[in-house]
C-alpha cells in the first residue's frame, strides 16, 4: 500500500498523505496490522472535503518508531465494507464515523451510537434509548447500574446480563459526559482557550492531555521547546503517574474492604499532589503546561523539596505495599479476578497498562519517544502476564517505583529556566500533525489539520480509554457481579476522556 510515514510530533503537508481507493486503503491497513502485534491503530477519523469524506488512518509501528498514514476519499452515502469485521481495533472508530457522518457499513457487527455527540447526524437517537443487547432467556436477568453511581465518580451506564450472581455479559453505554470539546477546539481561536480545553479533557490526566496538546501545537508552529520545557513536562508526567497510581491502589483497597491500605495509600497521594500545588498552584497541575513557555519555573528549592518528599514517601509506601501484597485475604480477591488474555487484548487493541497487564508491550515512552523520553530517560516498560486485577495492581506498584527512579534521574540535572516571554506561535497552513503521549492510563493521541491560512479545521483527541473500555467488559465476563467494583477500579478508565 502507498502510505506516508512520520514520527511522533512531526508535521506533514496534507497533500502528501496518499489518497487511495477504499478497497486498497482497507486492504493495505488491515494488511499492515495482520500478525503484527507491534502495530496498532492510534487514530482513524474523517474530515469533510466538500461533499465527500476523507478517511485518514494512522497506524503506529512500535518497532520502527514510525506512524503510517494513509487516506481515502469516500462518498458518505455509499455503503462500505467495515474494517471492524476483520479487525476489532477499529470498532469504536467506525462507530464514531457512523454517528458523526452517517457512514454506513455493510458488515459492522456492533454499529451502535458511541457518545451521542450533539453534532451527530441522527438526532432521533438519544442517550435514553440506547439499543442494549438483550437476552430472551427466562433464566437470565439484567442489572442496570448508572449513569449516576454510588460513589463520587463520573457518569456512565453499565448493563449486566447475569445468571444468578454470575455476569454473562456487560455492555457499557457512555456519552453522558459529552461536552463537544473537539468542536470547541475549532471555534475557540486563542491559544490559552485551547490550552484550557486540553486541561479539562480529563482532569485526572491534566498533564498528559495538556502535554499532548502543547507538543502538537509547537510542532504545528515550528517551535522547538528548549530543555527546560521538556524537563518540566517529563517531570510532571511522572508525578501525575505516581499520584494517580497511588490513589488507585487506595481505591482498590477500598473495594476489597482493606481499610488500612485505603487510608495509607490515600494519604500517600497527598504529598505528591501537594507538591504539584507548590510548584504550579494547582494539585492537578492545571496552569503548569503551556505551549512555548512555562509560568512556573522549576527552581532548585523545588528540586530539594521534591527529593525530601520522595524520601519520606518511599519507606511508607514500601511498608504498606509489603503488607498489602502478602495478605492472603487481599490476594485472593485480586488473583484470577477480571482476567483478560493476551489474545483478547490484542484483538481489542488495548493500550497502556491495559495492554501491559497481559504481556502486550505498548508504551509510547519507548516506542514513540517525546520530551525527555528516549534521551535522559530510557524507559523499560513493565510487563505482567496474567491480565487480572493482580497484574494491574502490580504494574502500578512497580511503575510508582520506576517513576520515582526517573524523577531522581531528572533531578540530577535540573536545567536553568530562562524567563519566558509569551512566544509568537503561528500555525502553518495545510498541515497534518499527530502527537502521542504515554499518560498514566496509556497512549494519548491528539491530531490536527489546518487549512491554507493555518486555521484549525480538524482537532481529534483520543484518550486511552477509547480502546480500553472494551477490555473491562471482557474482564468481568464469568466473574461474580460483586467483583465488578474491584475490576472497574483496577482499570480506572476515563468517562470524560472518552465522551469528550
Amino acid at each position, binding site marked *: 500500500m502507498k502510505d506516508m510515514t512520520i514520527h511522533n510530533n512531526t508535521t506533514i503537508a496534507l497533500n502528501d498523505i496518499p489518497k487511495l481507493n477504499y478497497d486498497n486503503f482497507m486492504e493495505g491497513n488491515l494488511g499492515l496490522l495482520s500478525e503484527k502485534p507491534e502495530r496498532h491503530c492510534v487514530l482513524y477519523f474523517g474530515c469533510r472535503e466538500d461533499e465527500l469524506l476523507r478517511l485518514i488512518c494512522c497506524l503506529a509501528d512500535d518497532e520502527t518508531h514510525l506512524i503510517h498514514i494513509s487516506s481515502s476519499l469516500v462518498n458518505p452515502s455509499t455503503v462500505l465494507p467495515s474494517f471492524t469485521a476483520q479487525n476489532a481495533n477499529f470498532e469504536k472508530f467506525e462507530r464514531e464515523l457512523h454517528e458523526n457522518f452517517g457512514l454506513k457499513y455493510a458488515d459492522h457487527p456492533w454499529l451502535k451510537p458511541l457518545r*451521542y*455527540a*450533539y*453534532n451527530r447526524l441522527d438526532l432521533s437517537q438519544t*442517550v*435514553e434509548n440506547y439499543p442494549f443487547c438483550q437476552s430472551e432467556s427466562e433464566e437470565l436477568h439484567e442489572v442496570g447500574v448508572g*449513569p*449516576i453511581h*454510588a*460513589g*463520587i*465518580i*463520573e*457518569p456512565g451506564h453499565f448493563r449486566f446480563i447475569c445468571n444468578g450472581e454470575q455476569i454473562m455479559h456487560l455492555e457499557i453505554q457512555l456519552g*453522558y*459526559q*459529552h*461536552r*463537544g470539546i473537539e*468542536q*470547541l477546539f475549532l471555534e*475557540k481561536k*486563542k491559544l*490559552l*482557550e485551547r*490550552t*484550557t480545553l486540553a486541561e*479539562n479533557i*480529563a*482532569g*485526572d490526566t*491534566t498533564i498528559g492531555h495538556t502535554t499532548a496538546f502543547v507538543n502538537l501545537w509547537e510542532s504545528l508552529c515550528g517551535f522547538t521547546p528548549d530543555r527546560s520545557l521538556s524537563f518540566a513536562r517529563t517531570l510532571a508526567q511522572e508525578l501525575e503517574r505516581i499520584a494517580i497510581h497511588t*490513589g488507585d491502589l487506595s481505591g482498590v483497597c477500598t473495594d476489597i474492604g482493606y481499610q*488500612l491500605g485505603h*487510608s*495509607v495509600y*490515600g*494519604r500517600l497521594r*497527598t504529598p505528591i499532589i*501537594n507538591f504539584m*500545588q*507548590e*510548584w*504550579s*498552584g*494547582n*494539585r*492537578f497541575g*492545571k*496552569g503548569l503546561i503551556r505551549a512555548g513557555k512555562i*509560568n*512556573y519555573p522549576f527552581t532548585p528549592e523545588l528540586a530539594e523539596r521534591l527529593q525530601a518528599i520522595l524520601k519520606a514517601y518511599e*519507606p*511508607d509506601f514500601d*511498608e504498606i505495599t509489603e*503488607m498489602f501484597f502478602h495478605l492472603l485475604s487481599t490476594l485472593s480477591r485480586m488473583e484470577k479476578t477480571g482476567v483478560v488474555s493476551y489474545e483478547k487484548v490484542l484483538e481489542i487493541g488495548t493500550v497502556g497498562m491495559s495492554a501491559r497487564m497481559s504481556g502486550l508491550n505498548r508504551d509510547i515512552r519507548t516506542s514513540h519517544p517525546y520530551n525527555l523520553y528516549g534521551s535522559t530517560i530510557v524507559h523499560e516498560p513493565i510487563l505482567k502476564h496474567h491480565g487480572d486485577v493482580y497484574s494491574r495492581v502490580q504494574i502500578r506498584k512497580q511503575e510508582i517505583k520506576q517513576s520515582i527512579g526517573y524523577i531522581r534521574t531528572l533531578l540530577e540535572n535540573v536545567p536553568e529556566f530562562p524567563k519566558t516571554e509569551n512566544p509568537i506561535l503561528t500555525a502553518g497552513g495545510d498541515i497534518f500533525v499527530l502527537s502521542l503521549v504515554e499518560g498514566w492510563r496509556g497512549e494519548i493521541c491528539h491530531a490536527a489539520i489546518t487549512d491554507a491560512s493555518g486555521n484549525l479545521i480538524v482537532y481529534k483527541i483520543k484518550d486511552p480509554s477509547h480502546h480500553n473500555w472494551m477490555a473491562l467488559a471482557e474482564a468481568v465476563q464469568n466473574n461474580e457481579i460483586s467483583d465488578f467494583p474491584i475490576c472497574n477500579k483496577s482499570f480506572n478508565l*476515563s*468517562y*470524560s476522556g472518552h*465522551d469528550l
Partner: protein
Amino acid sequence: MSSNIKIMWHQGKQYIPDVTTAKVPGIFRGRPVISTVKVNEDMLVDLCPTHAISANPICIDLGKCTFCGECAILFPEKIFFAKDCKLATNQRSRLIVREGEDQPVTLNPNMVRDEIRRIFGRSLKLRQVSAGGDNSCEMELNATNNVNFDMSRFGIDFVASPRHADGLVITGPITANMAEPLERCYNAVPNPKIIILAGTDAISGGIFADSPALNRDFLSRHTIDLYVPGNPVHPLTFINGVLSLLRK
C-alpha cells in the same frame, strides 16, 4: 496485628486539626485582589479564556474564572491571587471581585434559608452528581473525606443514594446528556433539600460555557444554596464553604 499498628504509627498525624484556619501549601490561586493601577484594560479583558474579567471597573467573576493565573502573570501590578481559600458564597453576585476591594468572600446571611441551619446544622448528607465534570472536582470531593481533611467529623458526608441525602453537589458544566438523570436524582431527594454547585464548570459552564452540548436549564428551575469556586475546588474551600452555610 503488631505490624498493622506499626504501619499506623509510621503514618504520624495526618489530619488537619483546624480546617477553618489551615493554609494551602505553596502557591495557591485563591481570592484575587485587583489594584486600581491603570493598565491596558482591553488587553486584560481579552486575555481571559473564560471571559471572567470585565472592565469599568475591572472585575473578576470567580464563578467564571478557571484560576489559570495568566492575568496575574501578565499584569502582576494589577492582579494578584491571595492565598485565601474561603471563596464560597450563597449569592451569585458576591463571586464578583472588584478592583480596589480587598474583602473576604462571605455568605449573605439573609439569604440562608431557615431550615438549613435548623435541620442540617449538625448533620448533612450529600449526594454528588457529576454532569460533565472532568474528574478533578470529583477527586477533590472524595479527598474531603480522606484522613487529611476528614469532613465527616463535622457530620457532613457523601452518601450513595439520593433517598438518603439532604441535598445535591453538582460538578461539571451539565451536559445535555446528563440533564435528565440530574433532574431525576434531584427529585429523588426528600424535602427540604439544598443544592451546591462545586467548581467553575458547574457555576458558569467554565471553558465550556458556550458549548451547544450543554443543557443548564436545571439551574434556572431551582434555587442554588451555595457556590463553591475552583478548578477544581480545593477540599478546604469546599469544607469551609459548607460549614459557613450550616453554622453561624
